[in-house]
């Protein structure tokens, strides 16, 4: 599965963007770069402690609004979301557009940066 995704990403990079595939496929995330980019999140989050935001270890694949001891918005608690990589990409693009009434207002505009951060978080088990 991973091999297929790497292949499709490299194909998209080597083909002309005009083919449209590069826009349709989310970029492949680089967890090493993601670790550096994650520093932008650390004003409010860390891997192992709840603060302004909930702790992040294990977030990929987790049901939204379920970290013990964190005071979530009613909106996120009731969202029924699971933090798949695709959902995290939407969330980091605009949390308020995805879950109106959520408490997070931080966003990452660059798709590659989002993919890198998600790839890093996916390793934090």
């Amino acid at each position, binding site marked *: 599965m991973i091999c297929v995704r790497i292949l499709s990403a490299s194909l998209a990079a080597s083909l002309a963007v005009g083919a449209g595939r590069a826009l349709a496929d989310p970029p492949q995330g680089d967890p090493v770069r993601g670790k550096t980019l994650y520093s932008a999140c650390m004003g409010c989050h860390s891997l192992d402690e709840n603060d302004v935001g909930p702790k992040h270890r294990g977030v990929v694949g987790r049901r939204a609004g379920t970290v013990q001891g964190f005071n979530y*918005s009613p909106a996120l608690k009731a969202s029924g979301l699971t933090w798949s990589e695709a959902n995290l990409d939407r969330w980091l693009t605009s949390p308020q557009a995805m879950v109106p009434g959520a408490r997070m207002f931080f966003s990452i505009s660059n798709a590659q940066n989002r993919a890198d951060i998600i790839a890093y978080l996916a390793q934090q088990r």
Partner: protein
Amino acid sequence: MPVQPAFVLHTGDVTHLASPEQFDTAQAAFSEIGVPIHFVPGEHDIVDGTDPRPYLARFGGPGAKGDGWYSFDAGGVHFIALINVVRLGDKGQGTLGPDQLAWLKDDVAGLRASTPIVAFAHFPMWSLYPDWGWGTQDGAAAMALLSRFGSVTVLNGHIHQIQQTIEGRTVFHTARSTAYPQPAPGEGAGPGPLTLPPEQLRGAIGLTSAAIRTGHGPLALTDQTLA
């Protein structure tokens, strides 16, 4: 305080989580200071969204407009309180927004260029370290509106350490925090609280004093730890 100042500027994060209880505690503590305090909010004072009203109801400046921006004159200096924490930009950077920039243009329109200007906000108004959100996306637009003035001093909080830069006739200065220190830009994993040995802590937090000496160049800024 060893020297009673004319007033205090608070560059934001009155609270950590913007709860009514934390606002109560802060108000009680500030009531003991006994001099006027002019506030701007930090992003922690608006932690559950983009509504600054719970903060403004307690700490808003007189005549505040929009999200809470205002100005006042003291000692021949024009002070401008800018709000850059209500709508976060990319990577958590601050934004001022077109309404505030339009207000700022009007606010300074009638001032002589010789009027010293002090602007204060929570996030750095220059691009100190955007990867950690340490900047204001449209800060340069605000600085352009102030560029005709002979003396511009821009103060901010947020990063819990002294950082300074000079661009043209504008001096940017970040004060320390009175809460906890944070790492230098780009050093370490990220901008979370920096844990120090207890004996070093009070040497890493503190206040900034500004002395106004009209006609003698820029403001004299003095940093003092709480040690």
